[in-house]
């Protein structure tokens, strides 16, 4: 217990310098600014803003990224509430009651309670991260290549089961993601693979470019045909601070949402996405009058938004302790950290504790920033929503071009971006989800590395994966999950759950 606070103290000492606070603030600001653009979710936001952190030292860059991350999350909630356009799957729930509140002239209250709930959830989950980091990192040290490989298989199966639509299609996407990750130099021999002799393909595909193409530009293509993004917010924001009644109504949903979200967020595979859905379902079940839900019930915003933020935060746990990103957003964060020379994983905590605890502390600061600085500025963000989409998409495209160019100063990367954008558009036409592919892409390289090492150790025998107890356990969990998800009864209710949330 004492350790926990001394560690957090160390973190605060690192994070609380004038420069870092300023960076965290700017990150938050820019994150919201880009995240609030319709159709641009957290993945595309982080990818677009990543280049601006390049000139910074690793600690400062991470702190700024944490700011961008929370800003992007909150920007997504803002568009969900004001325009009913969710930036990512977990924001779908917020559109249900949040947008209704906005239509009733209570937009400000909805935004306010979302920020307050998120801050509370963020504070609790920061403590959870601090408490779990040490034991989990020690667990990671007993992991060999075989265990890592099996853990990643399990994570991918989680992601497949939790993806929307066909499980079969999600598996295909994961495989294509891993296949894309093998483009570039071979890990041990350095031979170039699938680069077609093109010099700018030699380094493979950068994850940030994948994110921008599949989630940024491809989304612009979809918006241009759907025209829903042409919606401009004309309503008023109104009062931001919830009254005593609103707070009393929201207190318990925030507590429950935090607990549910934090627990699900720790799971490998996209557990965080479930948090918001689970919280909404719980609140609806517990409510004295469930018919209020879908008509602007404040519990329907407070609970899921807290769950969302708690999950967003605790999903850092598998990343920081085991080095395994649990979802597509974390996958982009890995790419960002790697570009700064930080390889997420157990060694971060053991070798550079100040970096680790600095990041944990800055997460909390990022949350605080969101509440005290971002919220009052919400009127400014709404101004951006009044820019017509016929101009806004031009801005998004040029930002992506600049962003991609500044990663490697390689014009060829923009050609890759173009190809990935078309691929992403094609995927949506055939109802394939890009998120499992992104996760497969990031885990692909690590999986290949661990598979090779495991097989070298076992002299080429695959039985090593089932002979080692921990590895066998992880694989068994993966198989059980897949079987459950494919069983007819669960399949039906799974489809129903996703359909309900779409409405």
């Amino acid at each position, binding site marked *: 217990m004492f350790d926990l606070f001394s560690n957090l103290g160390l973190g605060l000492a690192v994070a609380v310098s004038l420069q870092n606070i300023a960076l965290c603030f700017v990150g938050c600001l820019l994150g919201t600014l880009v995240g609030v653009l319709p159709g641009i979710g957290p993945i595309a936001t982080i990818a677009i803003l990543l*280049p*601006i952190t*390049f*000139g910074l030292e690793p600690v400062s860059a991470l702190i700024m990224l944490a700011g961008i991350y929370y800003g992007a999350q909150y920007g997504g909630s803002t568009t969900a509430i004001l325009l009913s356009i969710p930036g990512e799957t977990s924001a779908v729930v917020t559109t249900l009651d949040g947008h209704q509140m906005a239509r009733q002239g209570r937009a400000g209250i909805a935004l306010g309670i979302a920020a307050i709930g998120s801050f509370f959830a963020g504070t609790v989950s920061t403590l959870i991260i601090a408490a779990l980091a040490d034991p989990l990192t020690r667990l990671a040290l007993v992991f060999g290549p075989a265990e890592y490989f099996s853990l990643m298989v399990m994570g991918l199966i989680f992601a497949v089961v939790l993806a929307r639509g066909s499980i*079969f299609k999600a*598996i*295909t996407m994961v*495989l*294509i993601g*891993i*296949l894309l990750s*093998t483009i570039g130099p*071979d890990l*041990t*021999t350095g*031979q170039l*693979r*699938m680069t077609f002799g093109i010099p700018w393909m030699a380094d493979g595909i950068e994850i940030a470019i994948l994110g921008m193409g599949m989630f940024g*530009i491809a989304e*612009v*293509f979809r918006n*241009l*045909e759907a025209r829903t993004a042409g919606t401009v917010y004309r309503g008023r924001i109104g009062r931001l601070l919830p009254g005593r009644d609103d707070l009393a109504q929201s207190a318990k949903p925030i507590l429950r949402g935090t607990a549910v979200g934090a627990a699900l967020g720790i799971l490998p595979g996209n557990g965080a996405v479930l948090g918001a859905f689970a919280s909404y379902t719980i609140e609806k079940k517990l409510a004295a009058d469930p018919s209020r839900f879908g008509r602007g019930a404040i519990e329907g915003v407070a609970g899921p938004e807290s769950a969302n933020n708690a999950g967003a935060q605790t999903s850092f746990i598998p990343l920081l302790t085991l080095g395994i990103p649990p979802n597509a957003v974390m996958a982009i964060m890995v790419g960002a950290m790697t570009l700064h020379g930080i390889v997420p994983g157990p060694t971060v905590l053991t070798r550079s504790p100040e970096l680790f605890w600095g990041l944990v502390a800055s997460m909390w600061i990022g949350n605080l920033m969101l509440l005290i600085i971002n919220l009052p500025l919400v009127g400014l963000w709404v101004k951006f929503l009044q820019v*017509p*989409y*016929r*101009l806004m*998409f*031009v*801005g998004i*495209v*040029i*930002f*992506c*071009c*600049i962003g991609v*160019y*500044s990663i490697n*100063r390689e*014009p*060829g990367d*923009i*050609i890759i*971006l*173009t190809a990935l*954008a*078309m691929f992403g*558009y094609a995927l949506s*036409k*055939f*109802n*394939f989800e890009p998120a499992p592919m992104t996760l497969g892409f990031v885990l692909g390289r690590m999986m*290949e590395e661990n*598979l*090779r090492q495991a*097989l*070298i150790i076992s*002299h*080429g025998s*695959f039985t090593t994966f089932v002979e080692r107890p921990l590895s066998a356990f992880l694989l068994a969990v993966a198989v059980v999950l897949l079987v459950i998800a494919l069983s007819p009864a669960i399949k039906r209710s799974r489809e129903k759950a996703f359909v309900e949330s779409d409405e």
Partner: protein
Amino acid sequence: MTIRSPQNLIAGLALIAIALIAIWAVSDLPQGSLRIIGPAMMPRWLAIIVGVIGLLFVIGGFVVDGEPLERWHLRGPFFICTGMILFALTIRTFGFLVAGPLTMLLVGYGTTEVRRVELIVFAAAMTAFCIILFVYILDQAIPVLTIPGTSIKF
């Protein structure tokens, strides 16, 4: 045989095409053995699995009822992709002062709602904004203006 799910049929064919391209691209690399895996092992076997899944989709397209093909709206993708490729071609040779507006003017025509004057003003303003933000404030190495054949370079 009648096609019962055009969407699955085309998706399957596309997956098979991806698999074939990948298998062809690693054809000259050694696969190694299970003990010491070579560079071609992972991509080749992944591609084979993707190809088999593609085949299943193709078969499914004839056997199971499914969705029709969705309409593609190519105006947006066409102007945006052309614009981005133009950016890639001009950013090094001419700099952002040329590449930026050129790209934005082209990209803007991606929607039928385009208004010419408004777009020109927006492109000019955004060019200035981007140069100030990215080059001067964020200190990114983006060429502002180079004139080929001369030593003029900013």
